[in-house]
């Protein structure tokens, strides 16, 4: 009896040691990954001349918050207000709408492509896949022409209308749904449930982790999208964060400290969303999501 316990303890210790070693390695890797960001934050608190001094002072002797004041135009010290607050609001608005709808449409379509045997589904899906390979620069001018004919150039509709659907997202959800075993679906159908009901009540709850990942990815794409708003938006009142940041960067490119302060400001909401999304991940799992 004691011998068995001893072996078990030994095994547990071994597992714990492995855990600790791996944790340390991964943590070191993680820290290396974020070194550029540490540099970014540190630079955002320095004055222009100190940014590139060697040896590199990771934690500056002082915290020069005037950079942030400049970016946000607190106290009107900047020659021009870049209206970051307004850009934030615009970004949040467009991104939330696009995330909400594109996750919905991706799930619906992804499920259909994966599980529903409708005629033409393989061909249509292949078409989707094919369009992923066309770089976005190419559709920029044609989209512009279409938007112009619709009369919506300069408005947020130019970003919302195409943004409610994502081809990559559809692909992702399809792959996910393919991995979901068919027995659940068949059982529901035997019980007489329609396709939509099956989808809503049985399949969808299962896909919460995948949906959460998709939501976060779509959030990132939309938040960081800068080519489309640059071309389609004209008035500063409609600008999103990347455009405001690009404008800011263009004029102050030589002042890395300012550009870094602006970048850190643009980055913060994204980090918060990710942290919040993490919690949702766990919640989705424990609320009976994953078949265990």
């Amino acid at each position, binding site marked *: 009896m004691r011998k068995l316990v001893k072996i078990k303890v030994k095994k547990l210790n071994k597992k714990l040691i492995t855990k600790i070693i791996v944790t340390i390695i991964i943590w070191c890797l993680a820290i290396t990954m974020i070194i550029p960001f540490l540099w970014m934050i540190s630079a955002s608190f320095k004055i222009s001349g100190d940014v590139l001094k060697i040896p590199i002072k990771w934690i500056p002797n002082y915290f020069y918050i005037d950079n942030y004041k400049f970016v946000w135009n607190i106290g009107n010290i900047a020659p021009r207000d870049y209206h970051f607050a307004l850009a934030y609001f615009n970004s949040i608005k467009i991104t939330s709408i696009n995330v909400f709808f594109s996750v919905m449409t991706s799930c*619906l379509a992804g499920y259909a492509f994966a599980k529903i045997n*409708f005629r033409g589904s393989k061909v249509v899906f292949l078409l989707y896949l094919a369009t992923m390979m066309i770089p976005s620069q190419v559709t920029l001018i044609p989209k512009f022409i279409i938007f112009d004919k619709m009369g919506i150039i300069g408005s947020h509709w130019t970003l919302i209308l195409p943004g409610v659907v994502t081809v990559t997202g559809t692909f992702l959800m399809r792959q996910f749904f393919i991995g979901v075993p068919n027995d659940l679906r068949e059982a529901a159908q035997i019980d007489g449930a329609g396709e939509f009901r099956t989808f809503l009540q049985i399949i969808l709850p299962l896909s919460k982790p995948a949906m959460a990942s998709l939501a976060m990815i779509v959030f990132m794409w939309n938040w960081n999208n800068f080519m489309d708003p640059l071309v389609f938006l004209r008035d500063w009142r409609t600008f999103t964060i990347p455009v405001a940041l690009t404008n800011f960067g263009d004029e102050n490119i030589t002042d890395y400290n300012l550009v870094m302060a602006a970048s850190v400001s643009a980055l913060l909401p994204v980090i918060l969303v990710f942290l919040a999304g993490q919690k949702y991940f766990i919640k989705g799992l424990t609320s009976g999501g994953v078949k265990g």
Partner: protein
Amino acid sequence: MKISKQLRTDITGYLFIGPNIIVFLLFTIIPIIFSLVISFSNWDYTQGFSNINFNKGMNYINMWKDEWFTKSLINTIVYSVSLVPITIFIALIISVLVDKYVIGKAPVKLALFMPYISNIVAISIVWVVMYSPYGPITQLFKSMGIKNPPQWLGDPHWSLLAIIIMSIWAGIGYAVLIYTSAIQSLPQELYEAAQLDGASGFQQFTKITIPLLSPTTFFLITTTLIGSFQVFGQIYIMTKGGPGTSTHVLVYYIYTSAFTFFKMGYAASMSWILFIILFVVTLVQWKFQDKWVNY
């Protein structure tokens, strides 16, 4: 009236994809068709929409004589072939390790993911500084005793490698996110059974995890490959294709043709070549997936 089961299935199917496909047609397919049409012309968009001169596919022939095009193609292929396997391999290992062994998963995942969620403008600028002679990377090399560390972005022999390294750093987070969410959905009982049978961690990894993750791996290879062929942001900000043409990539040249030289027709034709390459590669992968992807 008796509607056949197949027809009913069809209708349901199309209803499900309805909103998706409408937007897709309007804002993806139609612009693409437009671009296909003008790829057979030498349209200069500043001339207005009525000045389209069709040159019967001369673009497709001329581009192979264009050394900017051929160099861009080669650079892009080198870039992709280096980036894709390394990123996915590292991401897979990290995801499994993080899931199984690591204490404090959330901050680690956040750290790995941060490059991906950042604005490409900001991180490109940071890496320019990192690669500069007075930046951390060069300092690190010097402190390790290397007298003449490479000039990275200033040296045509090192610049593409510099971009590749930066892109791996930026792209790992995405792959890790996809892998970790897939891993979380893996059925635990297979592992428990394997453990009872005495399989080691490594064996579980190769015999259970990798096969089960193969649909995800397929997805990642496909999307990462497609994405890497379309690299643009970091080139635009960090090197503008230079020094010389050492980091000149395909989409950068497409962008330059369209918006610096105003040759929309030519740019469109190059995008179609890009498309054909990716399409063929993906098709080959699709056919091959039966061999190694388990559903």
